């Protein structure tokens, strides 16, 4: 039991009539970085704020470590949070910001200073302690916010979309820094984001949320390769979801009719009858020769993106989104084409 740091039991949070989080349960292992992922309004930030103690649940229990903290306000919880806006106190220097949590906890001044300086060194800003937050760049402010949280050595470190105010390039670098720091210090962290790539890149475990409930919990690979349902398949990796028919179940495999093609795929608990198939954009192989076609189609849009080409293709199954690494042979709009399903990135999903 002791390797669980945060546990939610049937937690619900309602704001008046609206239910933001509905009967959510999960457990976060010590030393893991867990991402709460989902579209805006799915309840991920509310969940994070309930771990922080900034919101108290309407029902259910929240545990941090061995303690039941359900009704404990933020002040009394052993957590620290990095905010989307960084929330650096504008009237305090960088060093004062980082030392703030220690100071209000009544630590002696010398210790506050020493540990704040250590934390600043940790994030590579050792020489900027005397500046005001407004004199730092966005990336530097972000690191100060991280240092301010880390210095408290909290049981759980919380991140609320910490990278959304940075430009794309910086975002990539900072997320790697955060991951590296978290692993080096062995911290337990909960990270909220709506960016699936970010989530896949840094998480030990991802909790996908949709409409106030958990859609799926799993390791990044698990989510990508075996999405639980249509929503997860679509949200992570932009899968095409098409209607198919399962004709028979044979051991682990199901006989599936896709348009006029047939395939044998893991049945994943589905019974014969109509079903849904998630096809990754890179799970479709294009061929110019229509003769050996499994599925016929016509190019509707083609976008050259340097490393690959993106196509929208009109097919009897509906419009499919396809990425093709072959940039030397670009198919033009209006061209007839045949599509075949690859060996990876094709999976049956629940509705």
């Amino acid at each position, binding site marked *: 039991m002791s390797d669980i740091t945060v546990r939610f039991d049937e937690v619900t949070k309602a704001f008046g009539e609206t239910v933001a989080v509905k009967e959510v349960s999960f457990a976060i292992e010590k030393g893991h970085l867990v991402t709460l992922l989902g579209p805006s309004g799915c309840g991920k930030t509310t969940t994070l704020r309930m771990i922080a103690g*900034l919101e*108290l649940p309407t029902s259910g229990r929240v545990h941090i470590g061995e303690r039941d903290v359900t009704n404990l306000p933020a002040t009394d919880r052993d957590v620290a*949070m990095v905010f989307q806006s960084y929330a650096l*106190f504008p009237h305090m220097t960088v060093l004062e910001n980082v030392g703030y949590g220690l100071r209000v906890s009544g630590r002696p001044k010398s210790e506050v200073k020493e540990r704040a300086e250590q934390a600043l060194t940790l994030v590579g800003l050792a020489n900027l302690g005397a500046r005001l937050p*407004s004199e730092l760049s966005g990336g530097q402010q972000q690191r100060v916010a991280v240092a301010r*949280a880390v210095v408290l050595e909290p049981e759980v470190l919380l991140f609320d979309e910490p990278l959304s105010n940075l430009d794309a390039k910086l975002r990539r670098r900072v997320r790697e820094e955060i991951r590296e720091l978290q692993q080096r210090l062995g911290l337990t962290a909960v990270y909220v984001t709506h960016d699936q790539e970010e989530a896949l890149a840094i998480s030990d475990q991802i909790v996908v949320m949709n409409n106030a409930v958990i859609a799926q919990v799993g390791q990044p690979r698990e989510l990508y390769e075996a999405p639980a349902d249509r929503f997860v398949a679509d949200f992570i990796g932009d899968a095409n979801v098409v209607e198919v028919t399962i004709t028979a179940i044979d051991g682990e495999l199901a006989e599936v009719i896709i348009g006029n093609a047939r395939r044998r795929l893991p049945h994943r608990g589905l019974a014969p009858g109509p079903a849904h198939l998630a096809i990754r954009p890179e799970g479709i192989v294009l061929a110019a020769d229509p003769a050996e076609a499994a599925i016929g189609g016509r190019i509707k849009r083609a976008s050259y993106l340097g490393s690959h080409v993106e196509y929208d293709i009109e097919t009897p199954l509906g419009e499919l989104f396809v990425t093709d690494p072959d940039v030397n042979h670009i198919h033009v709009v209006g061209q007839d084409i045949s599509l075949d399903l690859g060996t990876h990135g094709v999976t049956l999903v629940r509705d």
Partner: protein
Amino acid sequence: MKKAGPLGLWLAIGWVGFVLIPWYAQSRGLLDPGWILAWDRQSTAPGLQQALLHGRLWLLPLVLPLLAPLVLLGRRQDTAAAANLLIACGALGTLYLLAQGFLIIHRGWGFAFLADWFGPLDVRQFGIGTGAALTLLAFLMLFAQGIAARGAVNGDRFVVGSITLIVALVAAFIFFPVARILTGALQAADGSFAPVVFVERFLDTRIWGLGCLAGGPRCGVAWNTLTLAIATGAGTTLLGLAFALVVTRTAFPAKRALRALTILPIITPPFVVSLAIILLFGRSGTVTQFFADLLGIDGGRWIYGFWGVWLAQVLSFTPIAFLVMIGVVEGVSPSLEEASQTLRASRWQTFTTVSLPLMRPGLANAFLLGFIESMADFGNPLVLGGNFQVLSTEIFFAIVGAQHDPGRAAMLAIVLLAFTLMAFWAQQQWLGKKQYTSVSGKGDAGMPTALPTPLKWTAYAITVPWAVFTAVMYSMILFGGFVEIWGRDHSFTLRHYQDAFGVTQGAFGLVWSGTAWNSFTTTLWIAFISAIPTAMIGLLTAWLLTRQQFGGKAAFEFGTMLSFAIPGTVIGVAYIIAFNVPPLEITGTGIILILAFVFRNMPVGVRAGIATLAQLDKSLDEASLTHRATTFQTVRLILMPLMKPAMLAALVYSFVSAMTAISAVIFLVSARYELATTYILNRVEAGNFGLAIAYSSVLIVVMLIVIGIFQFLIGERRLGRRGAAAPAPAGFAGAGR
């Protein structure tokens, strides 16, 4: 882990109040040390000693709710049992203390039927003093601690304590006095309960009569007041719109000068405009004499009456409408107007179909503000009204005049209060539901569209003469103090200033021989003392309103903003009716003036606070909380430093409005605590215009200096990116000074 609560502190305060500090109010104040340990005297003994030594046995039960919570010291207070104990002790202590205060007063039983039941009472009591107040505070806070321990507002003791304190203060100093007006109107002259008298008073033809429509001499004051308010509201709104358009949508050269007009209502004592009008249009006024000489007729007293009051009010309140309309006109997003123009609309079409409709809620708001201001105005109708009476002046005469009829004053106050509350309510409705916020958080490029040419010239034609007129008026005030007798003897003199502010060399050093010194210094220090609690309570309230969620918040907000809508005359009448007898007997003291100022000006502090807090990202508070700071630490270390500009603004504006207040305090001043405004008004009524004008000029200059220093201090303040600039006191205007 949980940080220790302040229970011990509150209990200590309660015990100190109960056994060390005089229970009843001290006529000489607590600064005179004669009360220390003087338990043998009835007047100075603390509560416990009153009960044990002086036969006031009814105070003895208060020991229990002070003793019981002692068992909780050093233990967990967040258990259900502890919470219930605290709630019970706090509630019972509070209720019992209040009940005994109302039931047993200075003449024995507070209610006649009690004497019938229990027989006459030999021992009486006086108004409560510091000791009782501290004990009461302790009970309230015990109650709050208990509520917090039960888990209210996330168990936040500081928030629950603050809410409890503010609710108690608002109840005691706004709701209680206003409620006493209602009971006052139900009492006959001898003090007995008489609902028939209430109906009689309400239906009085002097209030509702329509005689003037049928050719009779006059209408009821209620109709006078309404007509005047509508006329003033319409006038100020039109002028305000014209000024706002000129300043924001034209290339008018003297924009800065026009903008400076907005500061005038803040620094102008309430009847100064009337004085200037008298200097111009009065019997011996400049304009009157000019035309009288030209046409060979007698000037007459035509300015005294409806039109004089109207003119004075429009002059006084146009800057307020201007301030509101600037915000509204600037709020119309330029890109909407540009969109309209790219869709082939002409400038005139753009103005009438896009800009003006977007301003409509602002116009309604400005009108209602002018309406409320006019209703509540006291100084102008008093000086210029002549035979034209309005509610606020009628209230005044019902209290201080020969008729001395507090019941009638209460009735009139109810009518006036009903009018202003309806207008206030309507204004809130407009603001709440019809606001088209056309300014988004996103950067909004684009230039405001210039006005259509005919409209531009119309706006110029209205604003320029009016601005010149205003400038003339204020220069008359400044110069008028330097002539012997305005209109008759224009020779230069310093006599008025010497009379008011003379300093002579006496046998024992300097003598402040001027007649105004007493009221001037009293005004300064009372305004200064009252500014501090005003700012603190106002900002605390703003913080609760913007940052905390709790049950009954809407009612809380309404209660705290209510005093904005209560005319000063009503507050004044309410205070003398409510606070003339125990348990709170403070009429004639400086305290009642301070309280009146604090609760009249509190909404100003609230608004300044709300404006500033809106600029401070809520995640700053949350960051502090998640980094282990308590709510109190967050307020002290994060919000207070960041709200310094707002605090200064609230301080300065409450100081300045306390200096210019008249309507409430005219009922509350005493010989010992006379204020500048009431002194000036007395001079005006005695016909001593020169001194009144000189004194007014001094007040204006003093307030200009104060505001100037303040602007200078704020201007120096830079907080970088998230800089919290001083909020413009938008809509800064209470109902009547």
